[in-house]
């Protein structure tokens, strides 16, 4: 164990020390017994971000259900804490038992977004573990899973095993295998070789050219493990609430959306299961709010009965039900009113693009009429704040499409003012957010170049200028160096391993936090490797070129993605596959 006395001495010197102490309600503190396998869930970002991560919560409890395993957690300490830990000689430790990370059998990193990669190295270093797989002959097996694991190449030198796809079964199979191998005669090499035979495990050190690792998915989500409780964060998390996962996967086929292709097929949990889960989680946590997790909650086949059942069951217990990522066209009036009753919050719409032409290109099957109709319902039910999400830099975009955004915002405004003054409940606020499009692997746009940084900046200025003329409209856009790096790493290849390590050594960490982002570190690291980040992000891949992520089979056919790309260029949409198979390659396995 780490020296608790020393820890108590440094905690008063750091910001929000409650992040580093554990002891939360529902955290699982198990006594270690000889022979147990210890798995450390390491989230490569701050406590308040990691505590909101659903996948980690599921696997943490599922692993702890096993009598032969202990799962604990750790998060990336902020630089103030890291400096104190280093000075005091305290390594990265688990929040449950204050055990040094290096003493675990496994350390599992979640890869939710590309901009957390430096933090993986940062945490390994703080744990005193060699960064590269080839330099590790003992100590924990380093595994990684999550969305970004689908393009493992930029991290291949640092991770022993990538876990591709849903973890509920895959992680358990890996633990079973480890239990067979562990003991006095444990051979790391033999274990990794055996792990390679588990479907969904990508072991870069042992990968042979031409091999592809097929993703895993749970066939019956309703029967898949889901915890009956959650850890209650001691200090506020970004999403400080209960979550139930109503559905996994999405059939809409928006062409920019990586999750939409990675998490096929669509699987739902039953209404009854969800109500039971919600009830037990609320009882066990005391959370004030519950949210429904999915890629497109409005598409859940029983969304209204579910929402009404939850509201009826939880309202009297002072629990509000919130619905994220509600699609514009699934918006319903009765539903909107019901939601408003519970929480007087704003409404969010994501038309993503400003013109019908561009929305057809990206297959966002939403019309201007849908948006305005939903806005009217929202305003009539009393909302005065709406959020509108767009992307800029989408393939084929021109300034006309940007004009379309301003035009649509202006029309939403007019809808508000068309409502009789005495029926409005305050003044209008429209928050418009424009993120920069990042082409992602396993999407029809995976071959596309990102807009040059300068062009994205120009588009941001152009939009800002147009929208600033509209009263009550707030415009925000994303920090462009981050979008650039995200594009580089999202579609990057193995050359990035050296760049990543070098940027980390130059001080890059917590890259998604503006105050910690170091442009210089990254520029120098790319220059040293003889790579140009602009060129990497802003060059398109050839259609017949081998792609770095071809080592993974996400079960959606590459030819289908190409066909979807061609259809996009013809400004033509593809139907939601619930209305009929569109031939993505799953070929009936989704039924």
């Amino acid at each position, binding site marked *: 164990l780490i020296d608790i006395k020393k820890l*108590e001495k440094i*905690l*008063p010197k750091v910001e*929000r*020390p*409650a992040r*580093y*102490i*554990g*002891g*939360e*309600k529902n*955290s699982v*503190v198990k006594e270690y017994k000889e022979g147990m396998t210890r798995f450390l869930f390491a989230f490569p970002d701050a406590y308040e971000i990691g505590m909101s991560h659903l996948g980690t919560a599921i696997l943490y409890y599922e692993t702890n259900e096993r009598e032969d395993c202990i799962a604990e957690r750790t998060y990336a300490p902020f630089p103030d804490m890291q400096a104190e830990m280093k000075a005091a000689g305290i390594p990265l430790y688990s929040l449950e038992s204050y055990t040094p990370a290096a003493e675990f059998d496994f350390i599992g990193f979640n890869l939710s977004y590309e901009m957390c990669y430096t933090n993986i190295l940062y945490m390994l270093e703080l744990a005193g573990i060699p960064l590269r797989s080839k330099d590790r002959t003992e100590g924990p097996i380093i595994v990684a899973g999550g969305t970004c694991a689908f393009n493992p190449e930029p991290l291949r030198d640092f991770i022993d095993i990538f876990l591709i796809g849903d973890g509920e079964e895959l992680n358990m199979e890996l633990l079973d295998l480890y239990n067979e191998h562990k003991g006095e005669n444990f051979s790391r090499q033999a274990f990794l070789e055996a792990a390679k035979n588990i479907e969904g495990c990508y072991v870069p050190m042992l990968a042979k050219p031409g091999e592809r690792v097929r993703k895993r998915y749970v066939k019956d989500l309703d029967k898949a493990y889901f915890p009956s409780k959650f850890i*209650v964060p*001691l*200090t*506020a998390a970004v999403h400080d609430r209960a979550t139930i996962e109503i559905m996994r996967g999405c059939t809409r086929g928006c062409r920019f959306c990586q999750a939409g292709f990675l998490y096929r097929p669509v699987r739902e949990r039953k209404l009854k299961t969800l109500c039971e889960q919600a009830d037990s989680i609320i*009882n*066990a*946590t*005391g*959370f*004030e709010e519950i949210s429904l997790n999915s890629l497109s909650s409005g598409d859940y086949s029983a969304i209204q009965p579910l929402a009404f059942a939850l509201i009826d069951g939880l309202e009297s*217990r*002072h629990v509000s039900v919130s619905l994220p990522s509600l699609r514009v066209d699934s918006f319903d009036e009765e539903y909107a009113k019901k939601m408003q009753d519970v*929480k*007087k919050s704003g409404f969010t719409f994501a038309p993503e693009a400003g013109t019908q032409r561009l929305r057809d290109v990206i297959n966002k099957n939403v019309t201007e009429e849908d948006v305005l109709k939903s806005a009217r319902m929202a305003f009539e039910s009393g909302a005065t704040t709406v959020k509108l999400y767009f992307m800029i830099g989408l393939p084929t975009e021109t300034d006309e499409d940007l004009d379309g955004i301003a035009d649509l915002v202006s029309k939403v405004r007019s809808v508000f003012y068309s409502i009789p003054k005495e029926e409005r409940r305050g003044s209008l606020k429209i928050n418009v957010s424009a993120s920069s499009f990042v082409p992602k692997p396993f999407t029809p746009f995976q071959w596309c170049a990102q807009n040059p940084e300068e062009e994205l900046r120009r588009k941001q200025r152009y939009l800002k200028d147009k929208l600033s003329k509209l009263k009550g409209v707030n415009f925000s856009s994303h920090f462009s160096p981050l979008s650039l790096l995200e594009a580089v790493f999202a579609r990057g290849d193995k050359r990035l391993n050296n760049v990543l390590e070098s940027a980390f050594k130059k001080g890059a960490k917590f890259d998604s936090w503006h105050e910690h982002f170091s442009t210089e570190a990254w520029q120098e690291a790319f220059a040293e490797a003889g790579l140009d980040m602009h060129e990497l992000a802003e060059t398109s891949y050839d259609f017949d070129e081998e792609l770095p992520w071809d080592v993974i089979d996400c079960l959606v056919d590459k030819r289908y993605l190409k066909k979807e790309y061609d259809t996009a260029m013809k400004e033509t949409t593809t139907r939601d596959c619930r209305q009929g198979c569109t031939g993505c390659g799953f070929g009936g396995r989704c039924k």
Partner: protein
Amino acid sequence: MEYTRIGVKFSRTGMAAFASHLDMQRLFSRAIRRTGLDVKYSEGFNPHIVTSFASAMPVGLKSRGEYMEFSVANPEEGLAEKLNAEMPEGFAVECAGELYRTTPKLMAATWAADYAFDGSEEELAKIDELFDCSEILVEKRKKGKLVTADIRPLMIAKKGNIVRLSMTEAGTLSPFVLMDAAGIEVDVERLAILTRIDGRPEPLSALFGRSL
């Protein structure tokens, strides 16, 4: 609905000392919610459980005698035990009792607090030296501005390693500020929060009525 005020005495030990006051408010509200008790919520858009703490604890302070209050519809026996079962690691409910309608808010009833300093004789002698002074000026931040204040009037008494410091609306002295002034850094624990009944110092729990 008629609600009864409930006073709760609790301790905060170990790592839990590093929770902030805001964290404490949230974790108590959620622990209370988990008990399923019928409790009083605030009015308005986002109703929350009405809780009030006798003192905003400094981050890092351990305590054996902390107090908070909330209101319930049905004050039932075993409430303290029920709430204790829902507290996170490091927090323990010591006892709970009804508060009379006429009793002031616990926050307004505090007078002083006792602290145990776990220091060597030399270190404790530094505190004695402070008691010998007639004025001790320290700089502190107040609404972003540095102001100078005399903390000597807030130092009530010292007996062995136990020091009594003022805790009133007019002036509260943190043991950490005292240690800064004395130039020492030792472990400290709050032993009790005191009120005055007929001029006599009594623990705040003396204000509790029927024990629950």
